[in-house]
């Protein structure tokens, strides 16, 4: 740091606090081309801002508009002020970092304190509207509609939309939020809507593949009424059988007489026997998600089991790739050896292949029925179905993919160690092993330790390594909601959120936060021991 100061204290204008540079210094005006590029880029950025504001305005999200305006104004200030030179270089990356890395981390934390999951996604009002609409029955004076099933956006995944025509010229679009008039729809002779702006009409096959969703889809209309489909091409509006009563904050089923009371702690309506209605809403549950992982007998055993395996996996893989990589590096560490270049290319080959494809390849080589290993070795091992065989398989595949990197690094580190040191030790009577163990290895470890730490950190969250080979399996009697034998915390998180029948975002987010905490502890320990921090001072 001191050296740095002396270097900059002289004639230079750089290196001084940025603000001091501008007065009198070379004008930041620069070349004409540079100025034009700057203005063009800022213009483009402004256009993006305008593009971002329009949908926010239509949706009435005023805070969103405020945010966009603030960001654009900030960027203008940074690039037109002469006192913000470092910021000009940092702002582009930092904006992305804030929006797509830091904000998601904070959002994960807030989600982890809720019960958010399928069935608990929206607000209480939305849940009530959906319950009432879903319970409508047809009676004599029900309005009938000709139904066209459409989707908002992608036909396979977009939200379902009912395009309805009442036979008297009225056309409507019904979503889970309610019914709106539809303008400019094309209606054929049977009264069916064939095309419209803004929605994708589904083909019969697409409707069929989403029939389960269709069963549970209802459009809330006026208080206590809703539209449901009957069959795939007609719908009716009826009165709700289950009606919400504000005075008791409950829902009464007028047919059976059962009363469901709102439970604002669990975010659903429960009857006296503890039966709940499927549609619930999102509520804060405090630390419940965390407590469940730590203390609930089944979840705690699966969480801690996964954690232990996660650490064992990362340590074993790191250790093995280090041993194999170093062994290869030492073997090739001779001045003259025939075929050295060829050997080098061959052993580095796994590193140059696509790791994603290679994981899938290993999975198929371990396939119990058709896989290469069982066929070539004449075995009948259910590699990916047996707990220890699957763990072995995952580790072996990772050693294969990981050791070339260690080999490259170790070769570089070995070349930096003077050969004379080892030879001197041998002259003093040390054997080759002793010379290696007490002279070469300690020097090597100085260079290798940071690499080993980062390899460990990488493997601790090596999602692909496990997901692409075993998907976390094999699973015990509790099925896939508990951790599998090869599950890492990150694959377990992924499965809870995206791969189960009911997505459990709250739990998954809590699990992510746990990983954050574990990684934080590990990184505080390692960071305090690495030289990286000293470099900050330079």
């Amino acid at each position, binding site marked *: 740091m001191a050296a740095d100061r002396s*270097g*900059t204290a002289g004639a230079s204008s750089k290196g001084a606090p940025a603000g001091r540079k501008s007065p009198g210094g*070379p004008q930041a*005006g620069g070349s004409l081309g*540079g100025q034009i590029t700057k203005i063009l880029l800022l213009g483009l950025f402004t256009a993006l801002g305008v593009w971002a504001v329009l949908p*926010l305005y239509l949706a009435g999200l005023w805070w969103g508009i405020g945010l966009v305006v603030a960001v654009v104004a900030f960027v203008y200030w940074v690039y037109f002020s002469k006192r913000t030179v470092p910021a000009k270089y940092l702002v*582009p*990356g930092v904006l*992305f*970092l804030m929006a*797509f890395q830091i904000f*998601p981390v904070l*959002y994960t934390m807030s989600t982890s304190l809720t019960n958010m999951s399928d069935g608990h996604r929206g607000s209480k009002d939305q849940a009530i509207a959906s319950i009432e609409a879903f319970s409508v029955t047809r009676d004599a004076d029900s309005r009938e509609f000709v139904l066209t099933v459409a989707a908002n*956006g*992608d036909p*396979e*995944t977009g939200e379902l939309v009912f395009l309805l025509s009442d036979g008297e010229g009225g056309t409507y679009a019904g979503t889970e939020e309610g019914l709106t008039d539809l303008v400019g729809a094309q209606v054929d002779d049977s009264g069916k809507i064939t095309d419209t702006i803004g929605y994708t009409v589904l083909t019969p096959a697409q409707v069929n593949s989403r029939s389960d969703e269709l069963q549970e889809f209802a459009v809330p209309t006026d208080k206590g009424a809703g539209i449901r489909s009957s069959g795939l091409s007609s719908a009716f509006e009826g009165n709700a059988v289950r009606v919400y009563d504000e005075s008791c904050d409950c829902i009464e089923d007028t047919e059976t007489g059962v009363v469901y009371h709102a439970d604002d702690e669990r975010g659903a309506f429960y009857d006296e026997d503890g039966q709940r209605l499927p549609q619930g809403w999102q509520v804060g549950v405090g630390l419940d998600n965390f407590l469940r992982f730590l203390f609930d007998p089944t979840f705690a055993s699966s969480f801690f089991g996964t954690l232990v395996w996660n650490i064992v996996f990362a340590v074993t893989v790191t250790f093995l790739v280090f041993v*194999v990589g170093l062994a290869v590096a030492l073997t090739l560490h001779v001045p003259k050896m025939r075929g050295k270049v060829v*050997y080098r290319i061959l*052993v580095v*080959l796994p590193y*140059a*292949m*696509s790791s*994603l*494809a*290679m994981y*899938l*390849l*290993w*999975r*198929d080589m371990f396939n119990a*029925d*058709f896989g*290469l290993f069982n*066929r070539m070795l004449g075995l009948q091992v259910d590699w990916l179905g047996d707990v220890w065989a699957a763990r072995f398989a995952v580790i072996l595949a990772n050693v294969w*993919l990981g050791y070339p*990197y260690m080999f490259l*690094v170790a070769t*570089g580190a070995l070349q930096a160690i003077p050969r004379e040191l080892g030879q001197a030790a*041998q002259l003093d009577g040390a054997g*080759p092993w002793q010379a290696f163990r007490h002279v070469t290895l300690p020097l090597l470890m100085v260079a290798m330790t940071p*690499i080993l730490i980062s*390899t460990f950190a990488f493997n601790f*969250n090596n*999602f*692909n390594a496990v*997901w*692409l080979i075993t998907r976390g399996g094999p699973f015990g009697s509790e099925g896939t909601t508990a951790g599998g034998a090869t599950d890492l915390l*990150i694959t377990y998180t992924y499965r809870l*959120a*995206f791969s189960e029948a009911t997505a459990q975002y709250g739990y*998954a*987010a809590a699990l*992510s936060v746990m*990983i*954050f905490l574990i*990684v934080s502890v590990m990184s505080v320990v390692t*960071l305090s021991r690495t030289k990286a921090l000293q470099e*900050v001072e330079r």
Partner: protein
Amino acid sequence: MSVSEVAARPVYRRSPSTRLTLWAGRLGWRHAVMWVIAAFAIFPVLFVVSAAINPLGTLSSSQLWPTGASLSNAMELFRNTPFTTWYANSLFFALTNAAVTVLLSALAAYAFSRMRFKGRRVGLIGLLVIQMFPQFLAIVAIYLMFSNIGELYPAIGFDTRWGLMLVYLGGALSINTWLMKGFFDTVPKELDESAQMDGATHAQVFFRIMLPLVTPVLAIVALLVFINTINEFLLASVFLRDTDSQTLGLGLYQLVDSQRNANFGMFAVGAIMLSLPTLAVFWFLQRYISEGLTSGAVKG
């Protein structure tokens, strides 16, 4: 090594058997070890090549050593799957991410290396800390975020290229920025100072003087980002659900997920195609690689 000392002394003529023993002690065992390791290294590669040209195209009929050769698997891959779309998507993500990440990282590294400003220390430590939290750990939040963003802005929602691209760019400032900063520090300050004396602006110093001098580190970061992106699965699988918007990696995953045995030949061709860009960048950048790796950047 003591053996090699002895062998290096060319004093008297030895019988062939003694020479063989000496050779075995000095170099022979090294060749033996390398044969074993090389076999371990190449057999999966051999298998995937053999499966790719296997005329039957099933997993159960694929051997380690090819039993026949045909292009039927490649033809089927082109005919039955949107292979070219997948490939184009993969390359789009990898190339765009590599290029933009290098630019954003280099800009930030320049500021960190050459300027002293309030928050510099915090920023550098912050980058180290963030490195410990890979973006994909926040996947739940990213998914929920983009469910809402997609409703407002369909152009960057799920199943679009730009949505996922934005998320990838959130990870642009990372340990790579550190790597670059370290390299920028090795460029003598006198160079940019003299340029500034001659009236160059800071932007001209950055683009005209610094960038050309740090090309090696730019190449390495580009290589690492390219490889990481082309192999990225988690975020892509959450974002890209529509078949035509998927990357080659996702496509291959689904190809062998449903029909593990029958589609294996097609998968093998795809796996080789997915590895080709990686192999190519390795080949062209090999002289930078070991240098860059020892500076602390990590692949897997």
